[in-house]
C-alpha cells in the first residue's frame, strides 16, 4: 500500500518522480524495472493525476476515460503488464450529431473512408491521399502548415468534412484549426488505426493495477506529499523538499506542468538565459468543464452510443466550443459493461473551457453558473434520452477551477501546453543536470496513450543520465 505521507520515505533515492499522472507513473515504473531506486510523490490522496475517478452515493465517475487509440494495448503490455492490456476493450458506437450531419461510426479508417465517400461524396482517391498524408506525418516534419491549410488542401470549402475530422480531436487534446497540422495528423491517425478503446473496470481498476505493478517493482509511493521545491545546486539536481524534509536524489522527473516545474518548483533562476527565452512562446492549453450525471440504482437507460459528439452550433467553431455557454459537448456514456459487476449507469458531459471565464466569477456567480451548466447539459441530453432528468440522483459540475485544484496545473489546463512546450520539456535536462519533465506537452504527448509513451521516452533520458 502507498504511504499517505512522506514520513516513511528513505533519505535518498536514484530518482524522485513528482506527480503521478500517467506519464509520471510510467516513468517511475520503467526506471524501477531498469534497476533504479525510485520514490514517487503525489500531493493528492489518490494516484493517477487527471486519469482519475470519484465516488458519490454508489456512483463511480470517470474523469478522463473517454476513449483512447488501439496503440494503448501494445504500450500497456510493454510498459505495464499483460493483465492491463487484456482489459482494453473497443467502444464501437461513436455518434456525431450536429446541424450538418448525424452519423454513427466505429471511428476507424475503413469506416471513415466509407462515410466520406458515400455520405460526403468525396472521391475515393482524395480520401486515400488524405489518409496517406496524415499517416506519413511525424514529429520531425515541417510545422508551418496548419490543420486548416491541411483540410483546405484536401477538402476545400467543405466545412462539414472539416467538422467531422476536427471536432473529436479538439475534444481529445484541445487543438484547433490553427495548430500545426502534424499535431492533428499524428493524433488522428492513432485513432484511425483501429478505432476507440476503453478500459474495462474503469479508471479506478487501471490505477489500482498500475499501483500494484509499481510496488512489485520496488517503487516507494507516498501520497499527500506535496513537493515544495526541487533543490538545485551548481546546475545540478540534489533532491526535493517535501513537508519540511529533504530527500536526496540523483535525478528528479517532474510530472507537474512544465511551467509549474520551471517557475514554481525549480525556480526560474536555476535556468540559463537561453532556456528562459525558449520558455516565452510556451502557451498553456485551455481547460475543460464537465457535468457528471449518476443514474439511480435499479434504473436503466437505452444504449444510444458510447461517445456522442453533439453540437447545435451551425459549423465547427473552436471559439464557440470554449465559450461558457457553448452548444457543443461530448457525452461519454458508461453502461454496466464498463464496470462488469457494478450494475450502474453514469454519463459525463465534457466541454472545452477557458480558465479565465470561470476564475473571474464571484463565488455566488460561480455557483450559479455551475447550476446553469448542469441545466443546459440536461436539456441537451433529454434530446437523446428522454426522461433522463428524473432518472438521475446525482448531478455535479467541474470547471477549470476544479481541474486547477486537483492537478495544480497552471490555469487549470486539462491538455498541457501547445506545441512549443514539447521542446522545452525535452531540453530541460540539458540546462539543469538530472532534471527531467514528463507531462502533457505539445498536444502530441497528451491523452492517455501520449502521456504513457512520453513517460517511456523521458525514462530513457533519465536512465541514460543515471548510467553516464
Amino acid at each position, binding site marked *: 500500500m502507498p504511504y499517505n505521507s512522506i514520513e516513511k520515505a528513505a533519505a535518498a533515492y536514484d530518482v524522485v518522480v513528482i506527480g503521478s499522472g500517467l506519464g509520471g507513473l510510467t516513468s517511475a515504473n*520503467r526506471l524501477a524495472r*531498469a*534497476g533504479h531506486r525510485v520514490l514517487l510523490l503525489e500531493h493528492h490522496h489518490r494516484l493517477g493525476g487527471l486519469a482519475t475517478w470519484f465516488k458519490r452515493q454508489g456512483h463511480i465517475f470517470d474523469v478522463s476515460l473517454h476513449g483512447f487509440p488501439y496503440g494503448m494495448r501494445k*504500450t500497456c503490455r*510493454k510498459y505495464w503488464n499483460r493483465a492491463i492490456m487484456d482489459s482494453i476493450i473497443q467502444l464501437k458506437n461513436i455518434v456525431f450529431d450536429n446541424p450538418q450531419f448525424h452519423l454513427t461510426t466505429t471511428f476507424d479508417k475503413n469506416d471513415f473512408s466509407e462515410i466520406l465517400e458515400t455520405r460526403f461524396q468525396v472521391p475515393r482517391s482524395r480520401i486515400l491521399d488524405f489518409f496517406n498524408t496524415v499517416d506519413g506525418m511525424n514529429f520531425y516534419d515541417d510545422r508551418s502548415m496548419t490543420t486548416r491549410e491541411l483540410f483546405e488542401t484536401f477538402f476545400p470549402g467543405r466545412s462539414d468534412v472539416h467538422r467531422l475530422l476536427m471536432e473529436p480531436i479538439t475534444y481529445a487534446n484541445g487543438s484547433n484549426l490553427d495548430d500545426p497540422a502534424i499535431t492533428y495528423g499524428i493524433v488522428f491517425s492513432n485513432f484511425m488505426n483501429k478505432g476507440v478503446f476503453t478500459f474495462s473496470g474503469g479508471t479506478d481498476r487501471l490505477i489500482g493495477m498500475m499501483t500494484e505493478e509499481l510496488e512489485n517493482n520496488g517503487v516507494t509511493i507516498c501520497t499527500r506529499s506535496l513537493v515544495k521545491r526541487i533543490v538545485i545546486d551548481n546546475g545540478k539536481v540534489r533532491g526535493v523538499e517535501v513537508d519540511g524534509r529533504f530527500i536526496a536524489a540523483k535525478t528528479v522527473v517532474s510530472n507537474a506542468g512544465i511551467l509549474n516545474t520551471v517557475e514554481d518548483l525549480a525556480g526560474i533562476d536555476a535556468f540559463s538565459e537561453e532556456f528562459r527565452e525558449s520558455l516565452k512562446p510556451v502557451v498553456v492549453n485551455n481547460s475543460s468543464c464537465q457535468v457528471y450525471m449518476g443514474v439511480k440504482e435499479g434504473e436503466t437507460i437505452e444504449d444510444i452510443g458510447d461517445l456522442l459528439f453533439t453540437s447545435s452550433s451551425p459549423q465547427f467553431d473552436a471559439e464557440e466550443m470554449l465559450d461558457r455557454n457553448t452548444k457543443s459537448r461530448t457525452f461519454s456514456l458508461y453502461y454496466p459493461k464498463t464496470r462488469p459487476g457494478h450494475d450502474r449507469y453514469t454519463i459525463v458531459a465534457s466541454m472545452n473551457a477557458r480558465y479565465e471565464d470561470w476564475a473571474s466569477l464571484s463565488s455566488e456567480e460561480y455557483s450559479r453558473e455551475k447550476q446553469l451548466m448542469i441545466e443546459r447539459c440536461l436539456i441537451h441530453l433529454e434530446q437523446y434520452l428522454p426522461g433522463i432528468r428524473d432518472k438521475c440522483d446525482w448531478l455535479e459540475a467541474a470547471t477549470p477551477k476544479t481541474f486547477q485544484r486537483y492537478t495544480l496545473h497552471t490555469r487549470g489546463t486539462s491538455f498541457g501546453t501547445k506545441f512549443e512546450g514539447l521542446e522545452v520539456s525535452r531540453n530541460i535536462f540539458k540546462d539543469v543536470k538530472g532534471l527531467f519533465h514528463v507531462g502533457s506537452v505539445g498536444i502530441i504527448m497528451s491523452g492517455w496513450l501520449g502521456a504513457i*509513451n512520453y513517460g*517511456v*521516452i523521458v*525514462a*530513457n533520458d533519465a*536512465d*541514460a543520465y543515471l*548510467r*553516464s
Partner: protein
Amino acid sequence: MNKEEIRDVILEIIQDIDEDADISDLQSDLPLRDQLDLDSMDFLDIVMELRKRYKLQIPEADYPELASLDSCVAYLEPRLKDS
C-alpha cells in the same frame, strides 16, 4: 562479444519486446521495421536494454544504425568487443 553473439542478443531483446514477433526468417540486410511490427518506441526499448546490459550509451543520432540486423551488428561489434 563476436558477431554471432551480438546477433543473438539483438534477437533475444526483440523477442522480449514482442514475444509474437516471428524472427525465424528474418532477412538480416533488410530493415527490421519492415519485417516485424516494430515502431520507434520499440527501438527506444532496444537502446534502453543495451544500456542496462552493457552500459552502452547510444546517442539519438545513431539510432538509424540499428535499422537492420546487419547494421546493428556492424555498429555494435566495435562497441561491445570487451563485453
